[in-house]
């Protein structure tokens, strides 16, 4: 096991044992209960998946932020020296956040298949739903990382950045510049219009680019915020 993977395991263990995981998990369960409380008729699955993925960005961001905040600052210094450098500690934190968010997204994709969809949709629709939740995970990691305690030490300011950032993303995505930003509302519209399959690449590209830029900014800022 490499040092980075061992550090990922350590961070995940700390996250689970500290019960911080329960907060976003509880939020996820509540939101899924709202989204899929009423049965979704055949044909409505893409739209249901797109709405859920767009609104679950805040849960994925919350989970990423709380995971990155789990280790005390001094432990992060110890982890840096133990793993062989600050870069490995930062990479391990992001990888652990990705794993947690991926697990939450898998739950979000699987739950309506068991309870919510009247009929099991086609594999293509499930794949589109999984892809949208994957995009939501990337956005959530970027937002969660930039609102983590290493970047914004004040808990109040950090929470404001998390919630404000999510609302800002939603509002910006309905502006004319929305397709070039993170087009969350664009996902929903495309799914409602039945054009999600054709438009998915165009919707994914800016989402991936902006998410990667957010993560790169986080990595850059961590150079002076160990």
């Amino acid at each position, binding site marked *: *096991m490499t*040092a980075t993977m*061992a*550090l990922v*395991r*350590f961070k995940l*263990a*700390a996250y689970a*044992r*500290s019960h911080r995981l329960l907060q976003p998990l509880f939020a996820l369960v509540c939101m899924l209960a709202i989204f899929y409380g009423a049965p979704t008729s055949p044909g409505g699955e893409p739209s249901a998946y797109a709405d859920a993925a767009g609104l679950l960005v805040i849960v994925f961001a919350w989970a990423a932020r709380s995971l990155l905040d789990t*280790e*005390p*600052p*001094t*432990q992060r*210094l*110890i*982890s*840096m*020296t*133990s*793993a*062989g*450098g*600050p870069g490995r500690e930062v990479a391990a934190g992001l990888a652990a956040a990705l794993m947690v968010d991926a697990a939450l997204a898998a739950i979000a994709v699987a739950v309506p298949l068991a309870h919510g969809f009247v009929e099991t949709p086609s594999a293509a629709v499930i794949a589109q739903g999984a892809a949208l939740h994957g995009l939501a995970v990337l956005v959530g990691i970027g937002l969660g990382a930039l609102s983590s305690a290493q970047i914004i030490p004040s808990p109040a300011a950090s929470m404001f950045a998390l919630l404000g950032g999510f609302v800002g993303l939603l509002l910006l995505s309905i502006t004319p510049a929305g397709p070039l930003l993170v087009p969350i509302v664009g996902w929903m519209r495309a799914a409602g219009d039945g054009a999600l399959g054709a438009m998915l690449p165009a919707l994914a590209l800016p989402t991936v680019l902006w998410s990667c830029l957010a993560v790169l900014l986080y990595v850059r800022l961590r*150079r*002076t915020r*160990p």
Partner: protein
Amino acid sequence: MRLSNVSFRYMRRGPWVLREVELDLRPGEVVEIVGRNGAGKSTLLKLLAGALRPTRGSVVDRPPVVGYAPDAFPTGQPFTVAAYLAAVARIRGVAGPGPWPERLGMTELLDLPLGDLSKGSAHKVGLAQALLASPGLLILDEPFAGLDAQTRAELPVIAGEIAAAGGIVVVSDHQGGLRDLASRRRLSVVDHRLADAPPEAEEARPRLSVVEILVDSAEAPELTAELRARGYDAHLRPAPPPDAPAEADSPTPPDAPTAADATAPATTEVHR
């Protein structure tokens, strides 16, 4: 390992914490860093450990395995001591905690949650994790704080062993715990710059005074215990008879605490 013209500040327009530090560290060297609180010692140690990057200048030839023991180990983590050390051992790629729990006198702590540890016990965990992988660079930030006598005696031996194996040991220390390690090099952080520290004999030592307090014999034990609890080196002895000649040149300074009512022959002598 070499630091060349290293300067550091935490924010772009913030104050400089360290300026133009030049330092060569040779294998086998034990370096003690002294300086007043807030001088920048801990920041220098983090730069040496690689946890911080210099704002200016460079750090080259850092040994690949670095052990870093912070001045305050973070106990707010959901692990037992054994689980924590096992996790750090996995990260460092070593089999287990090795001899360190025994050498640091912490075998009985292994099953305790980190959150239940006293300050000294937590400090031992911080030391043990830093030593797990035979570090080529061992950095100890105030390592003697809160340690029991056995571990205080063992730590210079361990530092000597790391150095004898070709490692570099850098210690920030206010308590003179490495005093008996004759081969150490002493550096001082003064005004955000690093310089050779003056020999210990020339360093200002705290001025000591003796305060004699004459109290009723019945109150003397309680007062003595209270003074000891406040950290004073207090001793109780019978007062001389009233007709005995007074001692000349009392060392009591004018602003020192004065005696209680001298109604009975008992004297508490207080050193600080």
